[in-house]
């Protein structure tokens, strides 16, 4: 029998600490697969965000460093400028990238830093226990929007990808999701392309991935996965947000 699918070598043999139904473990696996397939493990450095995924270095067998809350892109910028041959990516959640790190996000993208960002959007603060995120949907219940997010009081969900697409240094942004096998495959393809943009030295690239957080959404895993397609994609539509590579998909 031919083996068609196996554990990526770059995924350490450890049990994930993530909750049942969480999207991080899938995205970690996709990253490990892409880095392995593109043969980048000897020249790649990942910068983790604060939040549940701060322990990503426990699972990915590559050089990784931690950044302070929101500062991932500044750290990645410094690393990339000091060592332009190194492939650098940040792995950030919505609180990290779109709240405390908004300034770093906007300016790193605008400078067109040759880095790649994996932006995991689950519309809530996970590690701190389910508070409102900048991407929390209107009427969504969180521990700090107990009556549902009200635009008059808490503002609207920020569409980071659309916002960054306006900036000159941004080359490629795509929004994907990990709520179905089809979308998971698309996500992998998108991550691959985002790295290729960096390898080609074109500018800033980002993949926004809609991911479930069943515990903080107070849903069963299956219900949470369905909620992405039913509710989140209404505010955050999937697809290519910006692509000026002038090429077809890298693979």
């Amino acid at each position: 029998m031919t083996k068609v699918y196996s554990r990526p070598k770059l995924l350490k043999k450890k049990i994930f600490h993530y909750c049942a139904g969480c999207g991080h473990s899938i995205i970690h696996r996709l990253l490990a697969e892409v880095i392995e397939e593109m043969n980048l493990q000897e020249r790649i450095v990942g910068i983790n965000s604060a939040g549940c995924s701060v322990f990503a270095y426990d699972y990915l067998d590559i050089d990784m460093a931690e950044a302070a809350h929101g500062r991932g892109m500044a750290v990645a910028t410094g690393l990339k400028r000091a060592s332009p041959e190194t492939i650098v990516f940040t792995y950030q959640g919505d609180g990290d990238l779109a709240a405390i790190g908004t300034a770093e996000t906007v300016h790193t993208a605008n400078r067109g830093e040759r880095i790649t960002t994996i932006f995991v959007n689950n519309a809530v603060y996970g590690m701190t226990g389910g508070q409102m995120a900048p991407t929390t949907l209107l009427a969504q219940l969180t521990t700090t929007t107990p009556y549902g997010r009200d635009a008059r009081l808490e503002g609207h969900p920020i569409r980071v990808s659309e916002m960054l697409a306006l900036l000159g240094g941004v080359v490629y942004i795509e929004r994907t999701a990990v709520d179905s096998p089809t979308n998971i495959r698309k996500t992998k393809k998108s991550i691959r392309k985002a790295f290729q943009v960096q390898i080609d030295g074109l500018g800033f690239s980002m993949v926004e991935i809609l991911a479930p957080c069943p515990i903080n959404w107070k849903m069963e895993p299956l219900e949470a996965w369905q909620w992405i397609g039913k509710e989140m994609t209404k505010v955050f539509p999937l697809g290519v947000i910006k692509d000026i590579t002038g090429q077809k998909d890298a693979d």
Partner: protein
Amino acid sequence: MAKVLMDGNSVIGEAAIRAGCQCYFGYPITPQNELTEYMANHLSRKKGCAFIQAESELAAINMVFGASLAGVRVMTSSSSPGMSLKQEGISYLASCELPSVIVNMSRGGPGLGTISASQSDYFQATRGGGHGDYRTIVLAPSSGQELADLTHRAFDLADKYRIPVLILGDGILGQMMEPVEFKHEAPAELPVRSNALRGAKGRASRIVRTCTSNTSDMEELNWSLYRRYQLIKEEEITCETFLVEDAEMIVVSFGIAARIARGAIKNARANGLKVGLLQPVTLWPFPSAKVEELANRAKYFLVFEMNMGQMIEDVQLALNGKGETFFYGRPGGVIPTPSEVFRVISRHYYQKGLS
């Protein structure tokens, strides 16, 4: 090399480049902009080097973090309010044991403050400043030449102990033009630190982290840092003395205040007063043993600072009751004159019946 006439901020820039500084990230703030501009002129197009005018001090210090991860010599600079913003990053640099050089050309505060020279960031510089149990080496130059020499030393110390090193200057030092001799040539090849993070080629992958849910791991990091700090205390304390051999009163001053104090002491000596100067060059670690040694002869210590009395606490700790301290300070960016300090010295001197 012949002496050149340069402003203090540019001196730091030139000395840093000659020390092999490959990356500079900063955000403009007066009175240290000449340094940022010097780096823009001399580093931004240099092969293998990088300069970024960051979007904030927060971003700048975290770019320093990134470049230090990549194993190069890296520097940032700011002035007092900007230094407050950098404290988060400095705490992370200390925790991750990442060498880096951070310059504070301080000004009068608190708050936005004045743009004139002050020494009111002593506590912030020497006590850690950011969160957590850590220290940074703090060097306090008092002249253009010391700016050049100590900038070079700062990079060496940072690498030797894998620690962030602060240069605590002030507005006058940064702006003042003086003849300076640079004693080193810039290295032809820029070295990469052996533990750099550039991808796991030919070795196991590496993690640079501060976060742990394990308290005993965190305690071990704190002990390990503590042991290194003790080593620095044994090896690196530096201070200058001036006319202390027969002195009955010692003026303790650092940085530009020590320069002013020298003028006052020359004046005092001309008037027959036995006064000397102790100038700590490393503010952390503080030259406590030297203070104690001087107290064997001189019983009176006039601590003169351009603040409301911060270093005086370190002097008192070092004396541990052995000598009597007086304080004279001018905060807010007011720059006292040597004759003003001389009057203060004379008053205390005669009041104690030392004539």
